[in-house]
């Protein structure tokens, strides 16, 4: 299939893998973080780690929109959905995320009306069809999805729709990366930069990482060859002692981002003073809220949102996983008490979550797989 198969060519992958291996200094260990959960998903789905030498470790980063939502926000959302005459809409990923009393699916079984949508615009359709109901869109995601929420609000305003609102949980990627760089737990050698976020914000916001922290960043696409090439570009920078921001995903990501999308965000939303991230705690200026001008579409203003802070379960180590300090399988409850069917932590829910990706795709011992491969096909 065109535009897919050429990015999954095994021969090209073998060639790139050889070039990557040749750049590894003997005895040196490399830790590269893929910031974006979409990359984590691709890496596991295609078995990309099979191509990497043992000295390169991929560390999974915080860029999974569902994973960073704290339990308290899920509880708040279910509280909103439980109000009379409310229909809540949500991306499918959110449906199974556990709050302290259960997930959206459980809430629906108890009587709420939370519907899965593929686009926030579908919420407008629902609002038009149900004039007697308030349709609340559970907005989540980084700068990738914020523009579509913004455009939906702008369209709702233009149509004069009075029964549509947004429960805004949009977050921004740069403060999270900065929190990880400032965290003493982890020593990283470079970053595979988030591709889709960068289509909106461009590559410039990462320049501080290269300049101030001396770490190379390569903004990468989402096909397996994109990621492998980005790893090669990072290794090349490291071998030459450079730290720069490079754009592997230039076919989609403009260096300066998407001005129209940024304007739409700026028109409808503004930075919150602070926001709680699951496992990472409160990070200042790391999330967006609805602007005063669009107050009529702000579910947090329209309804009493309890805003109770729910501490993460003690056993749950999502924070360490999100920061890349722990590999998914190193979490105490991974795969036993916490599984995709009964997730405790958010990382086990979204297909972009590191734990779900590892559990669903990578749950095997790679050294044994390699041994088996040498023996030949069974």
């Amino acid at each position, binding site marked *: *299939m065109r535009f*897919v198969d050429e990015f999954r*060519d*095994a021969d090209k*992958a*073998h060639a790139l893998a050889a070039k990557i291996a040749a750049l590894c200094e003997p005895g040196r260990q490399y830790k590269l973080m893929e910031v974006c959960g979409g990359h984590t998903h691709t890496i596991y*789905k*295609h*078995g*990309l780690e*099979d*191509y990497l030498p*043992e000295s390169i*470790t991929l560390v999974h980063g915080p860029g999974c929109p569902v994973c960073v939502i704290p339990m308290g926000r899920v509880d708040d959302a279910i509280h909103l959905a439980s109000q009379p005459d409310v229909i809540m809409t949500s991306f*499918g990923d959110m449906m*199974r995320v556990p709050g*302290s*009393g*259960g997930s959206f*699916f*459980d809430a*629906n*079984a108890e009587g709420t009306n939370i519907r899965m949508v*593929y686009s926030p615009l579908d919420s407008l359709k629902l609002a038009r069809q149900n004039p007697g109901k308030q349709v609340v869109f559970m907005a989540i995601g980084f700068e990738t999805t914020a523009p579509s929420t913004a455009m939906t609000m702008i369209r709702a305003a233009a149509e004069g729709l009075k029964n549509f609102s947004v429960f805004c949980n949009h977050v921004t990627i740069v403060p999270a990366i900065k929190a990880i760089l400032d965290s003493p*737990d982890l020593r990283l050698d470079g970053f595979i930069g988030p591709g889709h976020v960068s289509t909106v914000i461009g590559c410039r916001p990462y320049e501080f990482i290269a300049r101030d922290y001396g770490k190379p960043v390569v903004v990468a696409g989402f096909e*397996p*060859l994109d990621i492998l090439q980005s790893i090669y570009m990072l290794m090349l920078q490291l071998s030459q002692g450079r730290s720069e921001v490079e754009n592997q995903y230039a076919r989609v990501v403009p260096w300066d981002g998407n001005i129209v999308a940024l304007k739409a965000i700026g028109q409808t939303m503004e930075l919150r003073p602070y926001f709680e991230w699951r496992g990472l705690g409160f990070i200042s200026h790391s999330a967006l809220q609805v602007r005063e001008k669009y107050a009529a579409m702000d579910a947090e203003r329209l309804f009493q949102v309890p805003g109770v802070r729910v*501490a993460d*379960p003690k*056993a749950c*180590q999502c924070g*360490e996983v999100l920061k890349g*300090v*722990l*590999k998914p*399988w*190193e979490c105490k*409850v*991974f*795969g*036993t*008490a916490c*599984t*995709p*069917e*009964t997730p*405790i932590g958010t990382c086990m829910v979204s297909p972009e979550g590191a734990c779900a990706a590892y*559990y*669903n*795709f*990578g*749950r*095997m*011992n*790679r050294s*044994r*797989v390699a041994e*088996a491969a040498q023996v030949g*096909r*069974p």
Partner: protein
Amino acid sequence: MSRWIDEALAEHAQAEHEHSAHEPLTPAGRAELPLAEAQDREQQVLDRIDRARRRRPKVREERVTMSHGAGGKATHTLIEAVFLDAFRNPLLEPLEDAAALQVNGARIALTTDSYVVSPLFFPGGDIGDLAVNGTVNDLSVSGARPLYLSAGFILEEGFPVAELTRLAESMRDAAAAAGVHIVTGDTKVVQKGKADGCYINTAGVGVIERDIDLGVAHAQPGDAIIVSGPIGDHGVTIMLARGELDIEADIESDTAPLNHLVAGLLDQVPSVRAMRDATRGGVATILNEIARAADVGVLVSEDDIPVRAEVRGASELLGIDPMYVACEGRLVAVVPGQDAEAAVAALRAHPLGEQAAVIGHVRQEQPGIVQLKTAFGGTRIVDLLVGDPLPRIC
């Protein structure tokens, strides 16, 4: 803190405590462990997960959720924890597509299935022929010759009679094509809003005339795994037919009766060990059922799995995996390795099996686990589906 989390933690702590040989894990900072030691630790965790997966499933939810109908892990858990527990008997226990019964020396296969697909009419078929073909197929893959079907209708007040007539005609035609008769039935009507148009239940009986004993538990290392044609057509067709996605593709449901295809296969290759029709949960679910029931490993190759370009394209756009998407006219067969070629040839001799292919093998390594060699050249696991990307697909 929420009760359910404490319960889950306590339950697994208890189970692991009983497994006393278990070594405690080291605290944080393990990423710095020497490689060999890290791999050992990883293996310990994998073993622990394996034990957890083999424990008796328990329904944690207080109410039924949509996940319980998705054909994945939640469905399995519900069936095993609620129904199997209540009805347990040796005929039910294998949880095959149909039960094999002995009646006065004759071997009879009995099955039932309910259909709630939305929309009722879709490219390539409707809920009527789906209800006939589905039950015919459950009997066929059990090695039976389908004979008689029942049909039960749950109708919503206000449902157009013209549409009901269309569905009945479509069921009549499907039964004729499969060579079965619909010989008994039932009709119920519920108030408006208490159902969605029309639901159909069919049950079927067939006779097992061959001297065969099919079952996924019979799979052995060295066996080949075959699919009878391109996968995922039905599920993607239904999804697009709902019109919620603004994607158009030239694609039809594969709904079809498999009894003649199966008869041809069994005539040529009587050594077939197991067959399943790949409905809800798709081919991936069947592969997992094989791995679990026979306690074997399964290795399949993505390159060898037939998928139409339209299905692949739609799946790529929607972020779903065709391996989990329902088919309604495809089967997965397990045959001894040396008979693989003959089996593929026998399937290809029938129009419904023209694109039959060997997609992988059963092996000793990694029992209980399905592995996929990706087209990209890596390896990964193919697990049972958890959530439900496509509710009400059949």
